[in-house]
């Protein structure tokens, strides 16, 4: 067994983030069970649904690579969705909404980053507490009732298609590409990698560790704001529950993509395929008539398997 495991071919294969395996497996399953589902138009619609998650993942992978976590995305999405749909600002144009969303995301991210990096508070606790506060605030403002309609132009943007490719999917691809550039070719990307490997060693090498972490959280907040705008465009009526499970799913997709706390072999495209896997997973489970309970179990098992695969490798390497 050990000989098989240490064989170069196996090691090469095991280095591929689990997301690619899961994605290929699900695609194969779908191809065998329902070949007619595999046309670009149908898949485009399914993939379009996970774009908010896909964008949120970009922030999550950034903070996870500096050994932190951001669970406040749900609160940010909820608050921005509420502001846009509640007509609190009836005069506001699309650009004003975008500015407001980015301001909210930036401030929340800055607060997270300050608390995590400067005050050294547990990131799980900080971002959860921030999320709890934001959710409570929105539910209080709306008295728990759904706010109002999403402005028409936002839905129209979301529905634009170029051939089989929906605009949100292209936007997601663009964002992911941008993130890839930042991680791969910028000084900041190097800093992130260094802090993730070892914050202590990075500090001794002159990397501004605290600033790197604060900036990571702030970027994650801004990215959550972008995800919120896309999410709002994807629904017709505002809701007080929208996006609450997204941060947890984002963590799951990131791990599936081969990025775990402090380590990032999966890069940016691993988590990208992690999100695509979740999109396919929902399709496959719907095709096979698996109910909500089964979906929860399958999600849990997938997170667990991905983490075990990575955990086992971390120990060997």
């Amino acid at each position, binding site marked *: 067994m050990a000989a098989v495991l240490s064989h170069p071919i196996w090691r090469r294969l095991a280095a591929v983030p689990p997301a690619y395996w899961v994605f290929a497996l699900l695609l194969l399953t779908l191809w065998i069970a329902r070949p007619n589902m595999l046309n670009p138009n149908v898949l485009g619609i399914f993939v379009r649904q996970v774009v908010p998650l896909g964008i949120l993942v970009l922030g999550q992978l950034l903070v996870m690579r*500096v*050994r*932190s*976590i951001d669970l406040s995305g749900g609160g940010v999405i909820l608050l921005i969705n509420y502001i846009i749909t509640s007509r609190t600002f009836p005069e506001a144009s699309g650009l004003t909404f975008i500015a407001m969303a980015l301001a909210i995301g930036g401030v929340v991210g800055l607060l997270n980053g300050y*608390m*995590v*990096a400067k*005050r*050294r*508070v*547990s*990131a*799980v*606790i*900080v971002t*959860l*507490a*921030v*999320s*709890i*506060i934001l*959710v*409570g*605030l929105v*539910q*209080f403002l709306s*008295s*728990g009732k759904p706010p109002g309609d999403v402005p028409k132009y936002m839905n129209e943007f979301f529905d634009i298609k170029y051939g089989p490719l929906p605009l949100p999917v292209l936007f997601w691809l663009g964002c992911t590409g941008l993130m890839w550039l930042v991680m791969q070719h910028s000084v900041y990307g190097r800093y992130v990698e260094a802090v993730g490997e070892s*914050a*202590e060693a990075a500090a001794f090498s002159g990397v501004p*560790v*605290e600033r790197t*972490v604060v900036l990571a959280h702030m970027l994650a907040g801004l990215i959550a704001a972008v995800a919120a705008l896309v999410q709002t465009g994807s629904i017709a009526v505002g809701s007080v529950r929208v996006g609450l499970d997204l941060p*947890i799913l984002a*963590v*799951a997709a990131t*791990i599936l993509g081969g990025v*775990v*706390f402090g380590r990032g072999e999966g890069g940016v495209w691993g988590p990208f395929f992690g999100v695509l896997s979740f999109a396919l997973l929902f399709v496959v489970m719907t095709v096979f008539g698996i109910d*909500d*309970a*089964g*979906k*929860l*179990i*399958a*999600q*849990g*098992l997938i*997170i*667990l398997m991905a*983490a*075990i695969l*990575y*955990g*086992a490798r*971390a*120990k060997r390497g």
Partner: protein
Amino acid sequence: MTQWFKSGFSARRSRQGLWGVPMVIAVVLAVVLAFGTDQFATRENLFNLIAQAMPLLIAAIGQLFVILVGGLDLSVGSVISFSTAILSLDGPAAVLIPAVFVLAGLVGLINGLVITRLNVHPIIATLAMQYILLGITRILRPVSGGTVPDIVIAAVQGSMLGVPLPLFWGLIAAGLAAKVLYGSRFGLHLFGIGGGVAAGMEEAARTYGIRVGRNIVLAYVACALFAALAGAFLAGRIVSGDPNVGLLFELDAITAAAIGGTQLSGGVGSLHGTVLGAIVLALLANGMNLANVSPFVQTAIKGGLLLAIVGLQSRKKMGL
């Protein structure tokens, strides 16, 4: 004694954490409520307060075990829901009640083994467990319903010599935890392991001959067992099984432990602090209910309190 008392107010010197702050908050809250409102100091309200506080108290004590070793258990809420679902199945009490604890122990065992043997981060391992257990619970009991064995209901809703029985649940849980944490080798080792983890020296405890992996697994088992106890209590209170009753309970449990001065990096924390933390949360909820504060604002205030209190406790480690 005075030394020990002073240490409760200093985040730097104490291994017990900043437990003096929640104590002051609890006393102030109780005094304000007693003098500020007519309803607080009534028999019904105090009975109610105790019954509301107990499941949180019990779950928070369980959470303390894993936080002490630098872990975190996000599956607590799902274990609670799962326990109520098991108890509401058809069957004799003599089978159902042991089954709840055996199954919860198994859940804790799996959590612990996945974390220690398979080297998975506690947040991820227990998150996955949460999903799986929620799924199983929904299969067992898709919507709330069923009946709970009479003995469980009687043990929760009755009173003895004018003292409500729920108080005994809390006393038994706290007594058990005190014995384990402060009166056994296992408890001492938990503090030892956590102290090393918090200082960035995971190997420290091992070099002193502590069996790190085994103790961490046992901490997760203990956490799940306390969660099951909280679940049994809740089942007796709502008299049925409910797949959603434990929703977000793990967060309240973590909040209580954190308010009580337990540091999430491990090694620092205390049982009395955690109990005080749970009491603060219960008093806060009770007081705001009496003052007719919207439940949504209550949620926000709880989050703000958590943020403020953990902000007071500086530590060396950055990140999770």
